[in-house]
């Protein structure tokens, strides 16, 4: 499974989101991170805050992939609350 597909399955509408991103030329997690929040929000049809969250999850996945392991989903919100 492609990491971008994983991101779309975990945090968006799966294949529908993946198709939208592919059509916009976004094919990797790095491409997501390089996309402005407002542009991502427009593509996803979401609010800027939802787009920022999507980008944040992309960053987590990219970081996990670089570290050679994939972390579970928990953490981000709990960390902020602490």
């Amino acid at each position: 499974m492609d990491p971008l597909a994983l991101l779309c399955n975990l945090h968006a509408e799966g294949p529908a989101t993946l198709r939208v991103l592919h059509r916009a030329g976004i094919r990797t997690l790095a491409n997501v991170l390089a996309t402005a929040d407002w542009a991502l929000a427009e593509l996803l049809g979401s609010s800027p805050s939802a787009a920022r969250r999507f980008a944040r999850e992309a960053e987590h996945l990219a970081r996990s992939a670089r570290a050679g392991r994939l972390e579970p989903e928990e953490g981000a919100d709990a960390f902020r609350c602490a």
Partner: protein
Amino acid sequence: MHVLALVNQKGGCGKTTTAVNLAAALSAAGERVLLVDLDPQAHATLALGCAIEDEPTLVDVLRERVTVREAVQTAPGGVWLLPSTAELAEFEEESARLIAPERALWRALSVTRLDWDFAVLDCPPRVDGVLAANALRAADTAVLVVESGTFALQGALKALGVLEAKAATMDRPLALRAVGTMFDRRLKIARELLVGMHAQFGEILFDAVIRTSVRLREAAAAGVPVNVLDPAARAADDFRALAVEVRAHAGSPERERTGDWVLPPARRSKGATAARPAARARAPRHST
């Protein structure tokens, strides 16, 4: 014909749902698809609303009493179905008296390879019986169906090990792929499991994940694939995405839907509850 065997030794992981709806999605993409119900529980046959009375079924094909062409039925979703009944369980016992019983399906399908582009085999929930052996012997690709539930990953890894061992003993290549099912991204356990599957299976895991959807249950109850019941349903979209990947995996070319073509022996199932789509709108790829 590319033969896909949907396997897992665990029951209730979505094998039949995936087999029925993937077959219909492939058909909607212009492929000629044969769905083979290899489970004596006959859930794929029931899920397509087919009621079997005295028609020939898969067990008759395996016993070499009829050919595949004589036993197939047309079913909702533009799929040809090789149906099953509980009698199929008897083949397991009979196999002890047969020579190479695990090759029966392969022999039967090999003479009809030009009739369909894909054969989707819905396997019983065990990988050590003669029916599963038939499926793996006939298959070009074994697709491990993994639900997004507790202990699913451990079970799937064990099943993958069994499949790899079987593939290593076969005299022909068997590709291994995996697909996630029953995914509900609202559940933390499901998200964690998908991340785990991604880490464990890597590239053999299809990008498309089948999400939980009430439409899938409704479609099975109505005896039709989900893309017939509600083409706009997210489950229908998931299976469309899976079909795109399966076609790419099989090296299936893009085709145009032109002309009318119907497999000669196609017979309308008596119990089918939904209208069959318009005549197969594509010329046959092969001429015989």
